[in-house]
């Protein structure tokens, strides 16, 4: 039976290809078909069909690696997953209909045909979806790492004064990272005052406040002072409404004021140089 299907596909390759391209252009999402040049689309499509056929001629292993390679390639080309599965489905339909028309498949062997056909198509679906999922997972984890790198930098702005600007939502995992970076930075830069700038933190709830207070406490333990700067009016409102006690920590509204205060704490100040 497998041989029968293969022979059919092999002999009617170009017909199937043309029909497939026609149908895909009709059905598929515009962005898949038209983001590519027609030539490119045709080339990729024929490669796709070629690959489906090679399933018969090559060993399982070779086919697997070829399929994975192709799947990765179309992922890179940016074909949406829906288009690819639609493509597989269309291909299946064309072959089935074609074989019925040519009366290769008839009533008596239809069940055998469909079982065999199913057995042939299923690994294709599986591998393609698998490689899409892998690519997505890889992207997500890469982005996570990138986000982590950007997450909590400690910048030494003057001798003994460092600033940690926080941007974005703070969750428990990030809070831990913040705390570690903050303490390591304080010790390695020998800072006496650290300013945590929360201008870019959209929401300060009890959890975020708790993490910030913990960080401030830990900074005090390693022997530096911690200031929280960039408290916007709405954040001040939430903090008081939620009944969060920030009395232990020095707070200011802007980073500028905070720096001035930090300089004062370390017995320095910025003076203007008189003009000539």
């Amino acid at each position: 039976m497998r041989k029968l299907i293969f022979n059919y596909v092999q002999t009617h390759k170009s017909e199937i290809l043309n029909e497939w391209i026609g149908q895909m252009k009709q059905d598929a999402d515009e962005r898949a078909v038209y983001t590519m040049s027609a030539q490119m689309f045709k080339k990729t499509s024929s490669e796709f069909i070629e690959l489906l056929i090679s399933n018969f001629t090559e060993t399982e292993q070779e086919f697997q690696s070829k399929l994975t390679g192709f799947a990765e390639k179309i992922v890179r080309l940016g074909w949406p997953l829906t288009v690819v599965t639609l493509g597989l489905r269309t291909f299946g339909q064309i072959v089935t209909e074609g074989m019925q028309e040519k009366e290769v498949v008839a009533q008596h062997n239809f069940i055998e045909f469909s079982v065999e056909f199913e057995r042939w198509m299923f690994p294709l679906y599986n591998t393609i979806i698998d490689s899409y999922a892998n690519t997505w997972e890889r992207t997500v984890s890469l982005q996570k790492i990138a986000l982590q790198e950007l997450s909590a930098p400690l910048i030494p702005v003057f001798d003994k004064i460092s600033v940690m600007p926080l941007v974005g939502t703070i969750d428990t995992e990030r809070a831990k990272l913040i705390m570690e970076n903050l303490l390591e930075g304080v010790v390695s830069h020998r800072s006496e005052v650290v300013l945590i700038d929360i201008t870019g933190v959209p929401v300060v709830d009890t959890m975020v406040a708790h993490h910030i207070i913990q960080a401030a406490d830990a900074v005090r333990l390693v022997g530096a002072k911690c200031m929280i700067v960039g408290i916007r009016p709405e954040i001040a409102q939430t903090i008081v409404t939620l009944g969060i006690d920030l009395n232990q920590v020095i707070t200011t509204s802007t980073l500028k004021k905070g720096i001035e205060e930090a300089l004062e704490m370390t017995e320095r100040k910025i003076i203007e140089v008189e003009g000539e």
Partner: protein
Amino acid sequence: MRIPILKLHDCLLVSIQWELDDQTALQFQEDLLHKIHETSARGVVIDFTSIDFIDSFIAKVLGDVISMSKLMGAKVVITGIQPAVAITLIELGIRLEDVLTALDLEKGLEKLQRELED
């Protein structure tokens, strides 16, 4: 093993060089209080630079030592707490609230002198 307690003018200097076990910690508590009594020291600096691990019992003993010293009229500065230790202490809920801290021994001594002057 006892922890050496050194006298420097009117201050006592303690550098903890290895991980404390429960026995040593209690012994240290006793020794330090005796020494404060003996020398009538006005300040104590405890340096933690070489400690990178601390458990809850030791942390509690430390907290106690600090409040006891305070009762005996000595100001305590702790110096050189490592980030990991600070995180552990905070996670254990030990905040050591009224304790003076400094980054290293040098700054700790400076801070203590300033405190004693006022």
